[in-house]
């Protein structure tokens, strides 16, 4: 029998009913983490097991808490920018963009055309390398000991080299500024981006040939960790997790931030909301990102990259509040700022997609085998730096 679950089986799928442990039954309580190879950092899951089945799961975060929000309230607006790199350290450029967007709304700054294009290009490159490594980590947790991950990292390396050439750093880019970008593109950078982008479809095809039809991956991931669309919406899940559950919601389409209106791209949607769908959504999103890049790279106009009204020292936005959000690779990343007219924000709040996507972990894991918990957790695609802040 093929391990692929039929559509009829999916339609008749009901979440397993968890009967309470009987009197005298002994539950095994296991603390998975904080030092567990599958937790992507320091994160603990207190799991109660009945045999192999998960009866209860309590996520415990906070091991990596760094007081990001309070530090930001005590330092200038600019000084928080390098700290945003360290939230989700896989996608520092999208973090920069979300924070810059919030401050631009607060201070009423206009981003020049050229800077908008640069932002889209860097953000889409970030999305591709994030999804590539997320798939790599997920398959590694299924036992594909490193091969897909290494292929993903080979491609990611090319993108990180481009980031280093542009921003000076591979991961902690600290590139965007309020009203534009920090430095002008180096000579020939766009040509090198085109060369890397031209090679990406081949890499995605390779990943798909390696994984998509693989029976082990299908057996481990199809029908496992199902997230229903109504629960996903109620819990505020965003990003590939939400779209894998079949809800059509992409902030690039909804909010029209930046210049995403100008590009033609599709929003891939899942049907079943299981781990396999989350994998598939990420593959398809990489393809759509390649399409956006192909449209954006030839169109980059000449001109300034900074709003002339923006200033580096003595930046004091007027009194008010603003919420800037973007579609980060992991979901909706938002920054909420209140200004009291001084040089540092009165309130600084991050809406991290990783943390909020983790809140449904227990609902997805109940009744599953303990070995699948690792996969479900991996398919959420989190970075603990962002969960704990």
């Amino acid at each position, binding site marked *: 029998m*093929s391990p692929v679950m039929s559509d009829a089986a999916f339609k008749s799928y009901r979440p397993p009913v968890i009967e309470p442990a009987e009197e005298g039954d002994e539950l095994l309580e296991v603390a998975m983490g904080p030092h567990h190879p599958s937790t992507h950092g320091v994160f603990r899951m207190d799991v109660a097991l009945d045999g192999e089945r998960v009866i209860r799961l309590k996520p415990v975060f906070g091991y990596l808490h760094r007081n990001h929000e309070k530090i930001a309230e005590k330092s200038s607006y600019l000084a928080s920018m390098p700290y945003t790199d360290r939230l989700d350290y896989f996608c520092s450029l999208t973090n920069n963009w979300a924070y810059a967007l919030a401050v631009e709304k607060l201070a009423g700054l206009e981003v020049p055309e050229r800077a908008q294009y640069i932002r889209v290009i860097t953000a889409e490159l970030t999305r591709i390398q994030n999804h590539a490594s997320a798939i790599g980590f997920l398959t590694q947790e299924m036992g594909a000991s490193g091969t897909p991950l290494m292929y993903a990292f080979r491609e990611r390396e090319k993108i990180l080299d481009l980031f280093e050439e542009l921003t*000076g*750093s591979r991961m902690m880019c600290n590139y965007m500024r309020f009203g534009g970008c920090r430095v002008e593109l180096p000579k020939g950078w766009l040509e090198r981006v085109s060369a890397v982008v031209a090679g990406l479809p081949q890499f995605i095809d390779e990943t798909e040939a390696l994984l998509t039809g693989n029976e082990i991956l299908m057996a481990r991931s199809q029908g496992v960790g199902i997230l229903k669309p109504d629960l996903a919406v109620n819990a505020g899940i965003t990003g590939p997790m939400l779209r894998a559950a079949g809800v059509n919601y992409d902030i690039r389409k909804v909010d029209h931030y930046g210049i995403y209106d100008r590009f033609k791209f599709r929003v891939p949607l899942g049907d079943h909301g299981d781990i396999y769908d989350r994998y598939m959504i990420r593959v398809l999103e990489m393809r759509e990102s390649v399409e956006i890049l192909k449209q954006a790279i030839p169109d980059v106009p000449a001109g300034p990259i900074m709003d002339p009204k923006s200033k580096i020292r*003595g930046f004091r936005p007027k009194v008010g509040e603003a919420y800037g959000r973007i579609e980060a690779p992991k979901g909706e990343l938002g920054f909420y700022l209140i200004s009291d007219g001084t040089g540092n924000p009165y309130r600084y709040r991050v809406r991290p997609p990783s943390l909020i996507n983790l809140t449904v972990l227990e609902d997805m894991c109940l009744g599953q085998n303990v070995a699948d918990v690792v996969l479900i957790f991996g398919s959420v695609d989190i970075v603990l730096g962002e969960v704990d802040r």
Partner: protein
Amino acid sequence: MLGEGMLKGLAETAKNFAGSFVSKERLTTVQYPEERVAPIENTRDFPILIYDGKDPLAGLRCVACQICEKECPPKCIYITKSHDKKPDYVGKPQNYPTRFDIDISVCMSCQICVEVCPFEAIKMDTEFELSTTDRFGGLLFDREHLSKSNDYYHAIHPTEAAEVDARLAEEKAKAEAKAKAAALAAAAKAAAAPAAPPATPPKEPTAKEPGA
């Protein structure tokens, strides 16, 4: 057929394995430290202080204004201002740092200090092999250790250094022209009204208005 997908995947890995012997595209690892990848020009890691000319103290561009100390996000810069003054590159007397320490175990290489510096005095180095057995003193870099010549800066970031030099030369020329004009005006004024009190020395602008 069950297993078809797995065979297809194995064919892909076999292609990559065989390809790694012939194609550079599939073999991307480098045997550090014997082999090294080409350095990237914009790379940054820790700050350095730039000086002009030969003498690290006399040519130091830093005027100990302490803006970087205040703006540094992790607060890893420690500056003590001098009591006496020395002339800077346009000839104006300026303070200089008697102590300029950077704790690179705290520094996060964000280059905010470079951006806020109005005097082009602090720049980023590319030296990354900095491991030491002394984790306190060995990671606190003092002024002598941080001072690097402008030639060194040109060697590591040629494009950026050329831009900075052009900007500084322009400012110097502007300052000189302004000083000359002011001197001429003062002379003319003195000639017109000999009884007037002695003209004050022309006031020179700072390199850049703070807050500009």
